[in-house]
């Protein structure tokens, strides 16, 4: 491939993919020693630190929960634990997608093209599957007690 790229004319080089001509990929090169470049690297280091700290917090809380065994039959405690980890995970995901994958700096419409289908379809899938398994719990004699004990109307038959 490389040997076809010596003629110098950009139009010849990118005959099959003209997006190279217009998207600016050939133009916005910068100097690695410039202050702009160093500021970008500093930002990446800060994001790395945030990701590491969040992970350390997650692992520490996970170990504390493992040692202390909170009573997760109380639904508020159980949901609180789940919400805590899911929120921290979303924080990490936000930083990875917006800074590392650079989506935060793309155009508004491109962000929408990626994020709207992701949130809508995933949100619906999770809602649908959890509703289905709640129904499965509710109708099953064997697995019947979680939902019912949440509702406070039933205790497991083998307790």
């Amino acid at each position, binding site marked *: *491939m490389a040997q076809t790229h010596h003629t110098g004319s950009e139009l010849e080089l990118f005959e099959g993919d003209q997006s190279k001509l217009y*998207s600016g990929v050939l133009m916005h090169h910068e100097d690695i020693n410039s202050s702009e470049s160093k500021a970008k690297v500093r930002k990446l280091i800060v994001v790395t630190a945030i990701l590491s700290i969040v992970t350390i917090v997650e692992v520490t809380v996970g170990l504390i929960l493992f040692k202390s065994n909170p009573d997760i039959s109380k639904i508020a405690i159980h949901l609180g634990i789940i919400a805590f980890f899911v929120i921290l995970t979303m924080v990490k995901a936000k930083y990875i997608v917006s800074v590392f994958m650079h989506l935060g700096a793309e155009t508004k419409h*491109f962000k929408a093209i990626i994020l709207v289908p992701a949130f809508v379809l995933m949100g619906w899938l999770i809602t649908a599957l959890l509703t289905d398994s709640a129904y499965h719990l509710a109708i099953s004699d064997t697995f019947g*007690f979680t939902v019912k004990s949440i509702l406070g109307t039933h205790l497991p038959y083998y307790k």
Partner: protein
Amino acid sequence: MAQSATNKKLSAWRGGVSPFSLGYGKVMMWIFLLTDALTFCGLLASMGASRFGHDVWPDPNHVFHSVPFFGSWNAPLVFVSFMTFVLILSSVTMVLAVHAGHCKNKAGVIKWLTWTLIGGVTFLSCQAWEWTHLYMSGAWWGSFNDLATSPVSSFEHFFNPSKPYVTAALAQDPEMALSATHNFFNYFFTVTGFHGLHVTTGVILLVIGLLNTINNTYEHRGHYEMIEKIGLYWHFVDLVWVFVFTFYYLL
């Protein structure tokens, strides 16, 4: 004023501008990653539905508690935290490689791609160890599917007896505990296997990108956009692991 705005809008349809200021390949990589994210969401959400549909579920702290070279040390979360850090750090070195490519700094690209490659291979080695360890303790696709061959004594140590209903369920409804264990490992090997397949693909892409950089392919092309595309894929692999880590090992 209004006239010029109309002209500007029309010219986007005539060609000659890039509406998203992105190359074709990068847009397509994003669309692919969106569909791939939906696949992973399907796997993780169905795992969650299965877990929600069982009254008891194996406790990750009791399943994943071993560290290579540390024998019987009971250390939940330690090894997988190490794996997570390796993947986060390899994501950072990847973004530094992309940055170096942006500056047309060939030596920097080679250096950071090599570190990323080392991170990816380390992660895969850790996963191979973990899979082998679980296989040795009897867990695999389709394992724990019959009480005749897998009595309660073969899987009760995967459960946390201080969690609600666990002791009662193991004693009085072993079929349900067996079904939970069966599903837990089926989903575990499928999800981490599919993720590991992505890491393997990423490592292959990194090797190709590294060889092309060394051979000056991108230097002649005038840009390192291919490194950016590989970078997008690699960060996605890291992103998926963030979710696998939470839903498999923390919760």
